[in-house]
């Protein structure tokens, strides 16, 4: 068999490849219980992707939850050492309300977290690992990278109303430039004042195209420090082979109460939603009383089941034997086919519920194929 994981689902294959990738960069595996005290999530509800949490009362009377998120648990259970760098990876199931189905679902999630002393090297390494994670999925991919601090600076200079800031951030996430203009007009802001934000949202593409224009904009708007951070982070891709996969795109937005700095999302061709999401979440660390900095991302392998070849048969060959056939000879014949890389279902009678690419009968010690397609 060419690939030892050929029988695995695409999700399982990706999860295995990611674990190997992260371990190769010295990230330690992190295992955790399925349960966590509900209190942790009730205090940071906005950080969760969905509102719903499955809760139950433990035997000691504590309200527990089936964990809807991994990052919060990792932070809670880690020591706050801003002078050291801790690198962890996980591959866990989380329990969330699916926005589409409106019901709870068990969702596999693989990801990594780096916290403590998170310097420029660490940010670059995490970005590079995000790109490598998408490459591990297979096929064409795009990693969109943004700087939330830079985007929020442009928004904050327009208004100090929180609801309007949120509205503008939402428009940014939708690439909705006409929406930004409409909100600004409603708030009595002149088109000249909102122009830098619209200009920022229009900047989208490979770093080599976007960064020069961004530098000029940053200089005009006093956001040079944030632009320099973004430039430094993107430098991690130099000579990585991923230059064509990385784009600067300021429509990547996250909750600013938790995230700051570099944020990113990954897309794979053929999958309609983002399969990787992450960023720097120093603000979450502060809210949890930590001094450490942090960056991480999660890969959602669930939608990967929709790409690649969908299975159209249960096995390659259905080998039907006659009653009274020599079991040893039958086993040898089956092993021979399996050795050739075919999957073989041996049965005494054709099972109409099972679909195989080829049908064969075992008669007088011989395998006789009945046709190309079953």
């Amino acid at each position, binding site marked *: 068999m060419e690939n030892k994981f050929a029988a695995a689902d695409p999700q399982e294959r990706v999860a295995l490849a990611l674990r190997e990738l992260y371990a190769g960069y010295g990230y330690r595996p992190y295992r955790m219980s399925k349960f966590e005290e509900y209190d942790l999530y009730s205090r940071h509800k906005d950080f969760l992707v969905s509102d719903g949490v499955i809760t139950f009362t433990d035997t000691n009377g504590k309200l527990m939850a089936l964990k809807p998120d991994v990052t919060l648990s990792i932070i809670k259970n880690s020591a706050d050492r801003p002078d050291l760098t801790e690198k962890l990876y996980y591959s866990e199931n989380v329990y969330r309300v699916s926005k589409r189905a409106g019901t709870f679902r068990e969702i596999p999630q693989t990801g990594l977290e780096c916290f403590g002393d998170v310097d420029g090297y660490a940010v670059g390494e995490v970005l590079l690992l995000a790109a490598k994670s998408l490459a591990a999925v297979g096929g064409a991919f795009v990693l*969109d990278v943004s700087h939330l601090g830079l985007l929020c600076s442009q928004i904050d200079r327009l208004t100090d109303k929180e609801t309007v800031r949120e509205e503008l951030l939402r428009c940014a996430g*939708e*690439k*909705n430039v006409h929406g930004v203009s*409409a909100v600004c007009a409603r708030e009595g802001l002149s088109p000249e004042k909102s122009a830098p934000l619209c200009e920022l949202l229009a900047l989208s593409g490979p770093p080599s195209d976007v960064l020069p224009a961004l530098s000029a904009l940053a200089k005009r708007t006093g956001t040079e420090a944030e632009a320099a951070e973004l430039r430094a982070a993107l430098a991690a891709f130099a000579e990585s082979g991923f230059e064509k996969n990385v*784009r600067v795109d300021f429509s990547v937005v996250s909750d600013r109460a938790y995230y700051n700095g570099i944020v990113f999302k990954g*897309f794979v*061709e053929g999958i*309609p939603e*983002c399969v990787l999401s992450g960023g720097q979440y120093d603000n979450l660390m502060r809210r949890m009383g930590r001094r450490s900095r942090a960056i991480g991302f999660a890969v959602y392998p669930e939608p990967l089941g929709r790409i690649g070849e969908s299975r159209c048969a249960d096995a390659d060959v259905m080998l039907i034997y006659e009653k009274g056939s020599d079991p040893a000879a039958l086993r040898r014949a089956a092993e021979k086919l399996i050795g050739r890389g075919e999957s073989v279902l041996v049965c005494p009678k054709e099972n109409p519920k099972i679909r195989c690419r080829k049908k064969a009968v075992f008669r007088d010690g011989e395998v006789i194929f009945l046709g190309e397609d079953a």
Partner: protein
Amino acid sequence: MARMLNVALPKGRLGETVYGLFEAAGFPCPAVMEPGRKLIFENAEAGVRYFWVKPSDVAIYVERGAADIGVAGKDILLEYEPDVYELADLGVGVCRMAVAAKRDFYDDTRRALRVATKFPHIASRHYAARGRDIDVIRLGGSIELAPILGLSDVIVDIVETGKTLKENDLAVIEEIAPVSARLIANKSGFKFKTAEIERIARQLRKKETI
């Protein structure tokens, strides 16, 4: 060669107007307007494949990637909040999302306001922002009947000319948001067909400003 772009158009009068915009922007497919029951139309030369879907389903087709781009009313986008890009306001199908009530309506704040609507999410969000307790009555159509028959105190619905309201002795008491047709795109599809989608969006924005 550029890849084929899948475009979800809303069935009905708005869809026909919108197709006219696409055609004028350089993406024609005359078969789209031919009478018949065909649902998918392709112009390989222009690189587009159109299909008609129920207006409220356009956002689902786009969000789930069955269509790369589509045209949906802002009312639908506000109600379902699909995770899509909103690339252009096409300036057609212009109306407004509003609260309407009988002319003699008095808001008795001692009890929950009964709101009849096809847009429960928009209505709930609107009143939650004001801290007003409401009882949402979800209806599928003829919303104007609800306050007349005493089923609700107010309605939240789209208002185009206000003629139906007027004929039923109702009036707009509050505007929630302006509504018009928007060009939307699947976020992932946009990453891999950027040039094609941006070309269409650019052309449509031009048409909108002419």
